[in-house]
């Protein structure tokens, strides 16, 4: 059973544009929501994470928006760059348990 549903599966954005990736979850016990970035041939690397007591977190060009009532969260990449081209995974976990990952979004930023 997929505990975290991610969309879209793939995304093409022009350089300078905004990339938006969405995730939804069902388990209200989840209390930690990270986004991971994965380049080909590499392991996933933590990009940014949020806990449900805040609605938004920003780090540089990356922002997580969190809607607890809708059980949804999203990643916004502002001023997208070709170097951002990678696969992005949302995840969720309950304290003391392992991460549950979405299926991933393949992002391509065109020059």
């Amino acid at each position, binding site marked *: 059973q997929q505990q975290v549903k991610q969309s879209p599966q793939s995304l093409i954005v022009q350089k300078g544009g905004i990339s938006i990736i969405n995730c939804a979850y069902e388990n209200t016990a989840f209390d930690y929501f*990270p986004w991971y970035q994965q380049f080909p041939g*590499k*392991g996933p*690397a*933590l990009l940014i994470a949020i806990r449900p007591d805040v609605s938004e977190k920003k780090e540089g060009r990356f922002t997580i928006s969190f809607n607890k009532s809708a059980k949804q969260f999203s990643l916004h990449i502002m001023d997208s760059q070709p170097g951002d081209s990678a696969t992005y995974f949302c995840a969720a976990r309950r304290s003391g348990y392992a*991460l549950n*990952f979405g*299926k991933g979004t393949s992002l391509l930023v065109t020059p």
Partner: protein
Amino acid sequence: EAGVVQSPRYKIIEKKQPVAFWCNPISGHNTLYWYRQNLGQGPELLIRYENEEAVDDSQLPKDRFSAERLKGVDSTLKIQPAELGDSAVYLCASSLDGSGNTIYFGEGSWLTVV
């Protein structure tokens, strides 16, 4: 500081053969995870260790997969015998503990079963 180290990076074996993957977590990290990532999919947990104890192995196919973490540091994941469907990337990860700290992944061991 060294990250999570895995070996081998790549392995091609024939079906029914055994294979083993090794992981050295970040120094001081008590929690170790093995995930499997199929092509085009997100990682899925196989097993989680707290020190040397396997605290979640519910998704580990125990008929052919085994893992160990002797002395609570390095870990080995074994598949015997391998099947075609086992072709995937096997990711090792570690964190300070299981309470929500950042999880760091290794670069993975890419397995192809032919």
